[in-house]
């Protein structure tokens, strides 16, 4: 297990809570809720050793979507592509 946190200041708050995905092999769960200012993404992943890939993926997501939100990710070996897609899906519901 590894915990990774990525933060970014500013951004437009999301309007509601959202939950997508599931904790299953190759998949992940994303919980998104509104926050006053800034974005904070916390990842709990079952696969250790890929922090740079996680950071790059999450930073690109926040660059593309400057939001204020608290996001929790519970990962079970998802690919970066699946991570990005689930984040986009969660954001769509939370906006």
């Amino acid at each position, binding site marked *: 297990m590894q915990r990774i946190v990525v933060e970014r200041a500013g951004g437009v708050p999301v309007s509601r809570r959202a939950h997508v995905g599931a904790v299953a092999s*190759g*998949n992940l769960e994303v919980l998104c809720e509104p926050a006053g200012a800034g974005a904070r993404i916390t990842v709990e992943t079952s*696969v250790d*050793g*890929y922090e740079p*890939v996680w950071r*790059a*993926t999450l930073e*690109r997501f926040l660059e593309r979507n400057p939001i204020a939100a608290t996001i929790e990710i519970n990962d079970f*070996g*998802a*690919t*970066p*592509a*699946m991570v*990005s*897609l689930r984040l*986009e*899906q969660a954001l*769509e519901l939370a906006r």
Partner: protein
Amino acid sequence: MPVLGTRWNTGAVDKAERLSAIAFALSGKVLDASRLVDVLERLIRPGDRVCLEGDNQKQADFLSRSLAAVDPGIVHDVHLVISVLGRPEHIDLFERGIARRVDFSFSGPQSLRLAQLVDDGRVEIGAIHTYLELFGRYFVDLTPKIALVAADAADAAGNLYTGANTEETPTIVEATAFRNGIVIAQVNELVDELPRVDVPASWIDAVVVADRPYAIEPLFTRDPAEIDDVTILMAMLAIRGVYETHRVKRLNHGIGFDTAAIELLLPTYAEELGLRDEICTHWALNPHPTLIPAIECGWVRSVHCFGGELGMERYIAARPDIFFTGPDGSLRSNRALAQMAGLYATDLFIGSTLQLDRDANSSTATRGRIAGFGGAPNMGSDPRGRRHASEPWLALARGDDGIARGRKLVVQLVETFRSSGVPTFVERLDAVDMAGKAGLAIAPVMIYGDDVTHVVTEEGVAYLYKAENVDDRRAALAAIAGVTPVGMERRDERTNALRAAGVVAYPEDLGVRRSDARRSLLAATSMADLVRWSGDLYDPPARFRSW
């Protein structure tokens, strides 16, 4: 001046001698199965070139298991020519010293053992070929002395019926039989009357009834239950960014879940886009079960097949307007002709790979494995001998000096990472290092970057054929390579310029919403769905059944 004493029929004399040496086990053309090993020991001489029918799907496994059981003191140093080195006993031939040299195309399941044998100096690899190259060489400098092939049935005269899985049998037999080689066919059964004749008796020297039906793999069956949202997103991007953009009607799909997803989106997503009759009408394709919904919805006009697919027999026989079938109703496949069709008559090849470098060279060779390749390099290349035009082919033409010609669309469809930590986009292909270790003259690149016209990932589409120079090509690839080492070189300003020039398209540029990528878009989400679509004609192998 003729040289005195020269003989011009040494091959025929040799053949007659060898056949007389095995006459003890023959009754007409029917060979006594219990004496097969003995026959092979008397027939094959050290150094002979032997073609064993190891196809992509069908395997002459009774013959290969018997060959692996001969005494290496009698039969040794054989030169094996085989398209797919796929069974354990194929490798045993080298471990036991029966065979020494191999020319082949693909070694998928045996790729690890083959690499070990190369390391141990137990096998010499002549070359790793594409299918068409290897078949071509059967008629030039790799003509077999002995061919060991597989068929469904024979009659007493030696005519063969190959059923849905004809694959390479006629090609191998033709090369051998017309050069005074010897052809032995294993058959599942001897019958009085064949449903149709696929290979005539005069090309066959002996038939032997196998101890069990020939081995065959359902290689092209993909369970829709395993297709995830990312794969669906990539399929949507391929449909909008390539198929719709270029109006691709004649095509080949490589093996895998990525192309299966495209097939399952035709009757749903592509139908909503109004693309029926505009794309995907004529196919060079194995009988993919995931194409059933598109066929049933009237999308498909014709499919010519490289081989059969287990479980698809009854469905195909009931759809003779779509598939090439014999007067008996069953599929007639032919790998050599389907490869030729895929090379020259289709406008697009799309497939996946394990590694792509920054120049879009692709390879399925990874560390410690010598996997080879099948048909992808044929179909995934621009045939410069092509002289007929079509709309998508012409759309890729460069220049207007009056002799501009088009290009085949060669599309690589890959997720940026294969699993969470393994990037598809790499600085250097493993194939390059592997070639050095295995003593190969060239790196086993599956598709060369300069043939690749489009790369599709979950991030978007790179229209490489539009790039003005090498720098732009690399920047376009980096723009869709995600957070891989290649993708981390992406620069926003450069990417925006490439998007404006249409060299890179992101989902939003193509009208694709990422969040629309959901399994509910698939025309079938399970094997049971495919069976239902087929009207219960498709009969999946047991391992694909959950019911």
